[in-house]
């Protein structure tokens, strides 16, 4: 999807919590977020962090100047682990 939109002449950036899977797709620009699947911009209701993630992501869109470029965002998950099929999603298994 991202590849197609970019090919139509619209610059794109994506969020990823799974660098391995993301790199395989050769997206034009992406940012690495360390948040669990289901909450890619941070904790529900964490207005300031969501805004910071978005600002950083849009700055990455502006600043990345090589195809495939990426930026790792510094934020971490600051709430109880998310449960999925009876197990907690923990860093390293977020996607």
């Amino acid at each position: 999807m991202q590849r197609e939109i970019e090919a139509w002449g619209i610059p794109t950036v994506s969020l990823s919590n799974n660098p391995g899977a993301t790199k395989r797709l050769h997206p034009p620009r992406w940012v690495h977020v360390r948040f669990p699947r289901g909450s890619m911009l941070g904790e529900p209701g964490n207005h300031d962090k969501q805004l910071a993630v978005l600002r950083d992501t849009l700055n990455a869109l502006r600043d990345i100047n090589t195809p495939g470029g990426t930026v790792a965002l510094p934020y971490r998950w600051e709430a109880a682990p998310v449960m999925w099929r009876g197990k907690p999603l923990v860093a390293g298994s977020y996607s």
Partner: protein
Amino acid sequence: MPSVKSDSRWLAGFRARYGPWWTAAAPLIEKHDYAAAFKDYPWPAFTETPWTPVVKPLASSRIAVVTTGGLFRPGLDVPFDEKSGEGDWSFRPIPAGAPIQRLAISHPHFAHELAEADMNTIFPLDRLRELAAAGAIGGLAPTHYSVMGYCTRAADLAETTAPEIAARMKAEGVDAALLVPV
């Protein structure tokens, strides 16, 4: 239907390998054994990266969002197909003015409670509106897009939904797109 503009050389090989893969994978997916089912999935092998330079300042750019969270407008949109083992490659356009907290989720493969508590975690239209009000971006596109991230039929997604969404963005003067895979 608009034609594919990104590198499409992978499509023929993918389609050739998809049928045999699905024959073997379907019973495993039926048992929710996804690790075994996707072990031999014919992942597209891309060799190049598409690129469009950013030429417009963010402060005057019109931004569109694509989420893969399976969001839809109850009563207005048909939900995505949650039953099919092959997923769903259709899309739902969502107008910028839609109240996002009233959106519903049809996507069987992630924990919904976070997004249900705050849709901005996967579809941040409220936050983008705040950035627009602060002058950090030019504004939101009139239309944003939702797909269901679980879709094994990557070629159908790439040949129908992806160019259709791209063409609609082009027609609405979108300057940049943010993709939120879930």
